[in-house]
């Protein structure tokens, strides 16, 4: 075991391989407050990557309802249960990671889902925590709640799948941090399926190998954001590159949202994988639940989100979500708009910080017709 630094935990931890950060790290921020679970991302991913034989129930991207939706069934509660109650501590996580908790003879604490766990990808959809009695009204946070959690592979800095693979078939690309399974080397041992707590490697019963989200690497290589990002009708995602805390660039919208404004939170940081997709927590959900899923800092993230309109840099970064197909490497906010730039500094997109309001006259003079107010 090597000692590596995991900034999500605020401390060093044990990992089976030396810690080498890639030149750039694939990253994504997802705003859970904007997701409506339309599954456009899921379908875009499915038709692009997994329509083949043996991939029938395989969704590299999925959107599940929380707290009762899971794909595969019970994935997070099962591994949380195995890990047991841990001491979250404060800025420094005091509990065990999945690497610390590995039983004798194992590289990591994990479990292999049952085949049937994949049979109902959208189980628990829209299930709320309970019923609302008659006459009651919602308060904040909501007393009964649910929200949508869109998920892809987190292309972790310390991937459990890579650590678990006894064949060295999994690698993390040094140029962009994307984690891939070499389909010529994989022999379908399913150690990655067992080891990944997010259950994002899947076994393909036709190829007899394990497959996972490839981060749309051909798109990334040509400067484009992933399929799940650019097809999102709610514009809830921003995909680009995320820096380590000592390399933060204020003009990188991902860095600004995660490191400076501290709105983006990692998914289950306590597992110790330093996942690289970040979530803006749902504002209406009781923090006690959110602590478990996104670690400490959720209240700060929610408070910052509520005040985003007062921070033009933050507002500008948030408005670049879904604004263009290309990866935004730099961004700038001037008086009235936010601009996204590619790696070469060329302007990709410009969005207004405040959408102009147009008021149409109730009567159309040209057509001599009254307009219907549809709002």
């Amino acid at each position, binding site marked *: 075991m090597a000692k590596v630094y995991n900034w999500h935990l605020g401390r060093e931890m044990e990992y089976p391989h*030396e810690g*080498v950060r890639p030149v750039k790290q694939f990253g994504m921020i997802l705003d859970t407050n904007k997701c409506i679970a339309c599954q456009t991302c899921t379908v875009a991913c499915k038709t692009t990557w997994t329509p083949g034989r043996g991939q029938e129930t395989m969704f590299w991207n999925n959107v599940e309802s929380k707290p009762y939706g899971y794909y595969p069934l019970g994935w997070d509660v099962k591994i949380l249960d195995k890990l047991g109650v841990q001491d979250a501590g404060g800025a420094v996580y005091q509990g065990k990671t999945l690497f610390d908790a*590995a039983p004798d*003879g194992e590289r990591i604490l994990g479990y292999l889902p049952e085949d049937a766990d*994949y049979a109902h990808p959208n189980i628990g959809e829209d299930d709320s925590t309970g019923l609302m009695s008659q006459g009651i009204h919602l308060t904040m946070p909501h007393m009964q709640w649910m929200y949508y959690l869109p998920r892809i592979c987190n292309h972790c800095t310390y991937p459990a799948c890579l650590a678990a693979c006894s064949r060295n078939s999994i690698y993390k690309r040094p140029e962009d941090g994307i984690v891939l399974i070499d389909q010529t080397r994989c022999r379908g041992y399913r150690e990655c399926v067992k080891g990944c707590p997010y259950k994002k490697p899947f*076994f393909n019963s036709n*190829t007899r*190998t394990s497959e996972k989200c490839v981060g749309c690497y051909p798109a990334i290589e040509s400067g484009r954001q992933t399929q799940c990002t650019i097809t999102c009708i709610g514009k809830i995602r921003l995909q680009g590159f995320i820096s380590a805390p000592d390399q933060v660039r204020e003009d990188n919208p991902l860095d600004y949202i995660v490191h400076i404004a501290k709105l983006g939170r990692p998914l289950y940081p306590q597992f110790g994988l330093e996942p690289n997709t970040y979530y803006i927590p749902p504002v209406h959900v009781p923090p006690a639940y959110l602590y478990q899923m996104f670690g400490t800092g959720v209240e700060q993230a929610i408070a910052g989100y509520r005040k985003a309109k007062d921070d033009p840099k933050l507002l500008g970064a948030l408005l670049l979500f879904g604004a263009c197909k290309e990866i935004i490497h730099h961004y700038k906010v001037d008086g009235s708009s936010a601009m996204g730039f590619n790696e070469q500094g060329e302007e990709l997109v410009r969005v207004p910080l405040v959408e102009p309001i147009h008021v149409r006259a109730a009567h159309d003079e040209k057509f001599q017709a009254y307009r219907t107010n549809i709002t």
Partner: protein
Amino acid sequence: MKVNMHIQTVLATATLMAVAAPLWAADPVLVAAKVDGANPLGDPAAGYWNAAKPVEVAMEAQTTVAPTQPVVTVTKMNVRAVQNGKFLGLLLEWRDGSADNLLVTDGFGDQVAVEFPLAFNKDDLPNIMMGETGKPVSIWQWRAPLQYDKDKGKPTTKQLYPNSHYDIYPDKVLPAETAVLYTGAHGLGNPVSEGKKSAVMELVAEGFGTLTHVGDQQLVDGSGTHQSGVWRVAMTYPLGAESGVQLAPGGQTALGLAVWDGGNKDVGSRKAWAATWLPLQLTQ
């Protein structure tokens, strides 16, 4: 990351060399009896095995390298060897109540493997655990799912999941050269994806995590049957091959063994193995 993993593999191998020196037991010796003919000796039901004296080998859980399966179900195997001047034949027999030959997420397959030093030197054997850097081993692995493919054809999704329904597959609507892009490892010719040619794979290794298929260089072939709760798997290999394992009448080498019970979720390093090399003597 890849470079570092490689370094770690080397380190792990070096550590193991210190604790698990190669073992060579003078007794028992597996003798490859001379039989007639000049054809491959890969039929588990053939009569020529009667000419060979079986050697019983104790199998134990591999617990040295994680991940492990500490409780194994196969604790002994019978091994026989024959040669006809052109080919070596090995017959491996072990008790396993169920033939596990269909692969789904939580369903694993039965397997068996034999291992030979690529360059045999009785006094300088490679680490029995997958060889070591500079001392490669040849591994012949038979897989029950590949045998199923050969005997009955590769199972379709509909066979694996009778109640499943799927709208349309790429190969139903796209030209073959485009549809192949959606076939993953299968389209890349990964040997585990389909047992068209052989149910046995020929592999080389120089330590943990280095096991690699030899591709078109494969010389080994074989077949397995499951009857009355017993697997009988035969493997055959040409004598005097220019590449691969060097075997000749009158020659000697060492043999390692591993077996997997799919029903016990054995896979990869989760296996039962023979902890010492078994001497193999070929008759003249």
